[in-house]
Every structure is written in structure tokens, then in C-alpha cells.
């Protein structure tokens, strides 16, 4: 609270200290929504610029971390909304690594919890591509609830949405994500069948 007060009065070193303390968390949080470092940095910078201008509204009731997380959520959501959604992803858009990942994980998706870092990056990139075809609100709930195991209540508190809205949004988002992956899998199976028939 003391740091916030000093920063509000124009003490630059106090604001720098706030950044030093909380920027790792802001980066980790923004990193859930963007997979390019430049976008994560852009989001984090916007968060701290917003935080500086809104320091007057921080009353010190909750933790500064929670306050900054709310700002980060809204900033990321706005950036996701403003970024152009990609059209539907098809099998032909996938890289070879991504296609292999789908093939290999189709059989044992339930058991394979830990993957090599290289395969994890391929999966993360593929997930990003699938998510990018979906509305921003879908991306947010899927990343937080299914990806991060956040509760409906937590997401409602961070976004300001009602819990029923979060539940409905999550339901629709899961359906869209599942259908997108199902199409990719169907495309892969079709291609495999075609290549098997040729050979």
C-alpha cells in the first residue's frame, strides 16, 4: 500500500519496485494467452501503464497482486478481441510436427501426461493455432479453466462476469475446441487412409 501511495504521488522508484515485484507474475499470466514473446511483452507493458494511471483507484483492500491480475486479465482479453481471428484450421495448415503429434497422441492421450519439451512446444503451438480460430472469450475460459484448472468462481472474479456466464462460455468453448480438433483428426485419418490405399 505504501509503495502504491508513493507511486501515485509520482515516485518513479516506487513504481519501478512494483514492476520488479509483480512483473514475473504478469508475464506468466499473459503468457497463458499469447505464445509470442513480443505479444506477451506488449501485454505486460500495457498492464503496467494502465496500473500506473489507475493507481488512484487501488484502495488497498485486496492484494496488489490480485488487482494487477485483474488488470492483466482485462488487458489480455482486450488484446485477444482486437487481434484478427484466423479462419478455420485444416489439416493442410498443420506442420509435419503438428500432424505427427496428433497421430501419436490420438492413441494414448489419456495416459500421456508428460511429454518431452520439444513435443510440448509443438503441442503448445498447435493449441495456440486452434485457439486463435476461436472468439477471445472462449480462449480465455478454456485457457484458465481447462488449461490452468482455475475454478468458475476465480474466472468470474477476474473477468467480472457472472458464474453462470462463465459456465455457459466454458461449455460452448469446449464444444468449439472439440469440434475443431475432431475435424483435424478426421482430416488426418482421411489422409492416412488415402496414403495406405496408394501404397
Amino acid at each position, binding site marked *: 500500500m505504501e509503495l502504491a501511495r508513493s507511486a501515485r504521488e509520482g515516485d518513479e522508484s516506487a513504481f519501478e519496485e512494483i514492476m520488479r515485484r509483480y512483473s514475473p507474475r504478469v508475464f*506468466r499470466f499473459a503468457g497463458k494467452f499469447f505464445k509470442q514473446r513480443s505479444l506477451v*511483452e506488449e501485454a505486460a507493458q500495457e498492464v503496467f501503464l494502465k496500473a500506473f494511471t489507475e493507481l488512484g483507484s487501488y484502495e488497498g483492500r485486496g492484494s496488489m497482486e490480485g488487482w494487477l491480475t485483474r488488470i492483466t486479465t482485462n488487458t489480455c482479453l482486450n488484446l485477444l478481441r482486437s487481434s484478427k481471428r484466423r479462419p478455420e484450421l485444416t489439416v493442410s495448415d498443420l506442420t509435419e510436427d503438428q500432424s505427427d503429434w496428433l497421430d501419436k497422441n490420438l492413441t494414448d492421450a489419456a495416459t500421456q501426461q508428460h511429454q518431452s519439451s520439444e513435443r510440448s512446444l509443438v503441442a503448445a503451438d498447435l493449441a495456440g493455432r486452434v485457439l486463435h480460430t476461436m472468439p477471445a472469450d472462449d480462449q480465455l475460459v478454456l485457457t484458465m479453466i481447462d488449461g490452468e484448472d482455475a475454478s468458475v468462481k476465480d474466472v468470474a472474479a477476474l473477468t467480472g462476469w457472472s458464474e453462470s456466464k462463465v459456465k455457459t462460455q466454458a461449455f460452448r468453448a*469446449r464444444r468449439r475446441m472439440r469440434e475443431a480438433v475432431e475435424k483435424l483428426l478426421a482430416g488426418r485419418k482421411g489422409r492416412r487412409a488415402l496414403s495406405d490405399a496408394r501404397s
Partner: protein
Amino acid sequence: MRDEHIISLIENTSLGNLSDNDLTVIRAHANECSNCLRAFEAAQLSLLLLKEHAAVQFEPSPFFHTRVLAALRERQAVNDNWAFGRLWRAAGALASSMVATVAALAFLTFVIPDRHVATISQASLNANGYSAEEVILDQAQSEEVSEGQLLTTIYDGDEETK
């Protein structure tokens, strides 16, 4: 449950939060229903993708704080310029309105009255067809005539009585 489709079950909750009992029911049904099997496989892969997506972490670069502070100063400078510009514009508007008022007053004071008098006298000249002097002379003449008429009237009356 085995005969019921499990799609709504896998969409209502994250697969990671389903109980073992629910998963057993889902698997049992999926073994007999190809549509639900495809949906379940896709849901499992979706969850795996989302977990991998969320697992990627970023740390701030060493120059991040400096960059934010620079952006903050830049934004403040823009805001200051904007505030000065707004002040300048407000003052400019005030000054121009004052100049306009003074000009209007000067016009009303020095230009309009002369023109007004000149217009009135010219208008009266045009209406009557003679000047003020003529009016006075005419008046004098008419007064002389009337005195003469008066004397004539008096003396004529006396002569008639004689």
C-alpha cells in the same frame, strides 16, 4: 447411462475434473458408440493441448522495466503537450472572442451612428424636397402675409364703419 450419449458430460466439465466413475461410464459408452468415441478422443486431445499451452512460461527481460518507464515518460510528455495544447486552444478561443467583441463595439460606436444620422437627414430631404432654411423662410413669409392680412382686415373693418 451406457445407452445415453456422453457428449454433454464431456462438455459440461473439464475432463480433468471428471470423477473416475464418470470416466468409466464415458469409456464404456464410447466403446459402443463411434460418434461419442470420436468426441471423447477429441476432448482428450483438446485437454492435452490446453495443458501444454498453459505450461509455456515467460519471464520478463532485464530491459523490461526500463522500457516501461520510458513508455510511461513518453506518454506523460504527450499528455503534458496535450494539456498545454488544450490550454492554448482555450485561451485562443477566449482571446478571439474578446477581439471580436471589441471590434463589434468599435463598429457600433464609430461607424453606425454617423451613417445613421446621415441616412436620416438624407431621407428627410428626399421626403420634403426642401431644406431647413427654406422651411424657416417660408415660415417667415407666411407670418408676414398673415400680419398684412390682419392689418388689412382691421383697417378694412374701420373703413366700413365710417
